[in-house]
């Protein structure tokens, strides 16, 4: 019961702040609501016994990616935003379609059943950081290495793209 209440709170805040993220005029305000959203998603992760990923969510998403966003948003001055239109001219249609799609998924989910739902009361025994690490470095070693290459590409790509060309 208490878990359901906590989940309801998290879900409500997540949905409301997500809507606020995509409707605010000022991108800096969007970033603030995004921060709120990340916090509550981390809360959902804790509810699902994934404490390590909750911490990673806060460290990487909130502490690094979003700060980068904020940096660029503030650097590329957003003065004009207050006069310009927020959305393109199709937005009422798109919002309607969004509602329809969400309703459809909700219908499908509520009608269907999930295989794991019967035995859900059991908690993963000691699914701590150690087990996660063991799985990550044994079964998923190759994807792990590939992800490090992706990060390297991202690093070099970002530097090459954003660098000012000096000898032109």
């Amino acid at each position, binding site marked *: 019961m208490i*878990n*359901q209440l906590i989940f309801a709170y998290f*879900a409500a805040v*997540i*949905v409301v702040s*997500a809507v606020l*993220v*995509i409707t605010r005029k000022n991108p800096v305000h*969007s970033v603030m609501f*995004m921060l709120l*959203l990340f916090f509550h*998603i981390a809360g*959902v*992760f804790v509810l*699902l*016994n*994934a404490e390590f*990923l909750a911490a990673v*969510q806060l460290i*990487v*998403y909130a502490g690094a*990616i979003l700060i*980068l*966003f904020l940096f*660029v*948003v503030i650097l*590329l001055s*957003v003065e004009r935003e207050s006069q*310009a239109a*927020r*959305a*393109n001219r*199709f937005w009422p249609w*798109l919002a309607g*379609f969004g*509602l329809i*799609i*969400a309703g459809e*998924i*909700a219908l499908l*989910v509520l009608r269907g059943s*999930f295989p*794991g739902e019967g035995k*859900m*009361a059991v908690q*993963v025994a000691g*699914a701590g950081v150690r*087990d*996660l690490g063991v799985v990550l470095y044994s079964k*998923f070693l190759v994807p792990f290495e590939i*992800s490090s290459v*992706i*990060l390297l*590409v*991202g*690093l070099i*790509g*970002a530097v090459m*793209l*954003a660098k000012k060309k000096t000898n032109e």
Partner: protein
Amino acid sequence: MVPLSWYVLLSAALFTIGVVGVLSRRNVFIILMSIELMLNAANINLIAFSHYLQNLTGQIFVIFVITVAAAEAAVALALIILLARNRGTVYVDEFNLLKG
């Protein structure tokens, strides 16, 4: 105990909000943030299923998703800086050089 379907519904709602944001907003930052919303929706699903199926694979996938999101954000922001420098705007409908 929270039923699994609740998590799926939450994730679906978040994903739809992200899709609508990507398609309707003009500001390229908000579009990028909407993409992050969609990735987060996927993460919620992955962790929820990992918890209910008693399998750590879902959590491992979330680590990979976050890695890719970090690389993607870095490259995308570099592209935005480049675009803003060359075109002087951050609105996607003004990036229309290829329009005849």
